[in-house]
């Protein structure tokens, strides 16, 4: 669906090792977001990262707009500070579920992966609702076992957003 995220032939053992590293990354990343520690969130990215959350139709037709669109970790830091300190929105709990991790390409320096995600939201009075379902297209910088996101494109199927998206994916 996105250029640069094609499946390459990969040796099975390399794919398994990469998959374990990516799953570990997702677990820590989601723990930070779900734990409400939003100002720590940019630290999962490289300095020159690209981050975009956009609906399926935009991705499928090559439209560049993002619900969230950031060039560089500093833009993510500005967003994190805005969310935690300036923005007004009703209190809510978020839960991220990431699954079906699929390794698209691996080198010593980089892992390219695709995963599915579900984002659940619970408002003060509300039921827990499926706020977003979508796919993550991730490009990681790899330094030994440590991964940082060089690029994340979160492409959601849930095009009709229930009011708003307060926290990132």
């Amino acid at each position, binding site marked *: 669906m996105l250029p640069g995220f094609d499946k390459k032939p990969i040796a099975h053992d390399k794919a398994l090792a990469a998959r374990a590293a990516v799953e570990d990354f997702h677990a820590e990343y989601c723990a930070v977001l779900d734990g409400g520690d939003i100002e720590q969130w940019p630290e999962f990215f490289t300095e020159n990262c690209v981050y975009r959350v956009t*609906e399926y139709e935009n991705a499928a037709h090559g439209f*560049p*707009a993002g*619900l969230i*669109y950031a060039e560089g970790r500093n833009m993510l830091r500005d967003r994190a500070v805005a969310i935690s300190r300036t923005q*007004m929105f009703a209190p809510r709990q978020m839960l991220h579920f990431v699954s079906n991790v699929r390794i698209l390409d691996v080198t010593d320096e980089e892992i390219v992966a695709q995963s599915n995600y579900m984002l659940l939201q619970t408002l003060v009075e509300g039921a827990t609702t499926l706020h977003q379902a979508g796919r993550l297209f991730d490009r990681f910088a790899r330094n030994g076992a440590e991964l940082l996101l060089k690029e994340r494109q979160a492409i959601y199927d849930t095009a009709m957003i*229930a009011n708003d*998206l307060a926290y990132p994916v």
Partner: protein
Amino acid sequence: MYSSETVIGLGTPSVKNKPIEQLVWPEEGLHAIPDWVYTSDDVYAREIERIFHGPTWNFVALEAEVPNSGDYKRSYVGPTPVVVSRAEDGSIHVFENRCAHRGAEFCRHTRGNNTEFVCPYHQWSYDLKGNLQGIPFKRGVNKLGGMPRDFRNEDHGLKKLAVTTRNGVVFASFTHDMEPIEDYLTPEILKDFDTVFNGKKLRILGFYKNELPCNWKMYHENLKDPYHATLLHSFLVVFGLLVAGNRSAMVADSKRGVHGTMASAKSDSLYAAVDADKKKEMRSFHEGMVLKDERFLEYVKEFDSEWSVTMQTIWPNLIVQREMNTLGVRHIVPNGPNSMIMLWTMFGYEDDTEETTRHRLRQGNLMGPAGFLGLEDNEAMKFVQEGVRRSVTDRSVLKLDSENIGTADSLISEAAIRAMYKHYREVMGF
């Protein structure tokens, strides 16, 4: 959470949903808004009939969304699904998304290209202008069945709407003797409308959609309410995009008073200086905050306009957004008294450089359902809808700048909202 998933107070209490003949506007006149304008099923039904299906021009598309012959887009006039289609001769047509035969909503893709429209149910086919072309087995089989002899295709086309365009913006109406769009918009609104839609070809940058659990009129009111901008949106204040005291305007059109332009001019320095006395009034103000990436706030002057921001409300269903260099239209689809759908189309110009496009995308973080400002508006309007629907109190207060109706000289004014309700009451018979 969608409005349909409300847990406490699902359904409107009868006191906020009375029969229309029992509804009386409060004695305060335009200094109060009764809750029932936001919560009544009867009022909503009359709005669709008299406003969205009545003598108004409704936004349906940008021409850039259907640039080529055969291009089409699903759209809405009020809550009614329509199709916007570009015919072989380049003309644009808008018709109901309802097969003339048995009523199927035949166009299922958000947008696409085809040479004709074929209803999947019985394969009645229509040309790109909505005329009925073909009916399978029209004469029956073996001289049995089929349409009666006097059946004429030209009497059974799709229901067509009146269509007009202004510099690449497509409007439609169920009323076929509408005034020209220029007269409808009025010169004072056209001034800033034509700044954005100046005849240059647009480049579509993408779409988003959201459901706001609020009445559709609240969206207009929010953009005719410059008072909230420096109070709710502390982000604007902190980073000097808009501070009480910035040069600004709140214009209402002189003909009906329903269209508006909320405009402001950014101060020259990147961050605004806020006086101590104004700071006291703004409890959300944050001292000493600076951005880590300042590219986001840069304003590149690209138009011959004194304003860096113009937010236009075009009655009844269009918002034109020019927030510095991020441009977009928002299409309001009313969805019952307690809900509305917002369809966003972000754009730039065909001759934008790659860097200009990226600047527009970066600045796009201000707006939309995850925008620094957009999110706060959505939240606030949800709070208002919940408040007016579930409380015992029955009206809200509209007294800022109380002597004025229409264009306001001050940001601390609700005069443009009063102008909208003045017209609304006439049309609705309240």
